[in-house]
């Protein structure tokens, strides 16, 4: 089974990992961007319907 080519990976899958998973380190030595709910903001940009986003947020 060959891996999917990068362009085949849907952006949602990518955003779900890159903005939602992985190590988050904060502290005096980092800029405080981690305060932003990244995946929420990221998905908002990807989703046409704001109503969808409100529902997703409630289900979190």
């Amino acid at each position: 089974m060959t891996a999917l080519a990068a362009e085949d990976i849907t952006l949602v899958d990518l955003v779900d990992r890159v903005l939602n998973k992985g190590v988050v380190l904060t502290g005096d030595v980092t800029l405080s961007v981690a305060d932003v709910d990244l995946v929420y903001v990221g998905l908002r940009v990807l989703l046409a319907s704001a109503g969808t986003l409100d529902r997703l947020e409630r289900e979190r």
Partner: protein
Amino acid sequence: MISAAQGTGVYVYGVFASGAPAPHGVETVEHDGLVALVRDVPLDEFGEEALPTHLNDREWLERQVRGHEDVLASAAEAATVVPFRFGVICHDRSDVARLLDEHRELLQRDLLRVDGCEELGVKVWYESPQAPASDASDDAPAGGRAYLERRRDSRRRALELAAEREVLVADVHDRLARYSVASVVNRPQPKELSGREEQMLLNAAYLVRRGDETLAQEIASLRAEHAMSGYAFELTGPWPPYNFVGEDA
């Protein structure tokens, strides 16, 4: 007066074990056996005030998210990598070293946990069969006893099918987990997000030994077993082990 928007910060992609070559175009900050993969970024894009605005720019976001993944994926070809979430940015390189120092325990634990491993994503989809064309009896006046019985039967059937799907998904996950070092079951994405008509039943990630194809073979078996049944099995990856690092892992 110097504007806060000027200058550069240091973006950290993740950490990998010392001694491995960094991907082309990526720099490293080494501290006591840990190596951070970094690049300088302009603060007028990545600063505390600018970033939230840029995140709302779809093209910018897509470029950054793909860039983040590309760096980590190519680093992972050379060595075990602990991926960071997008957006860990330090003021300068000495702060990156301090960051590695402060979080040494967590980072070394993660490096050990995902050593020699990669992540595979699995989704199980289900497409409901087309509703059968209504027969003549459906035209009977509503409210009759037959009508109520039909409704009750169809509701019971729907519940049975939902229960069957639940059992199947649990079984699929158990079978796949057997071929993995660790697994994470995430919430299925709703249709609005997946962009597909089918219902997502399983959205899971499996940590496997690098190059181990047994899980992919199991997916092939599942596809064969469930051919034409409305179930679809999707395999993505290999990914850097995003789902298996960090405080929550």
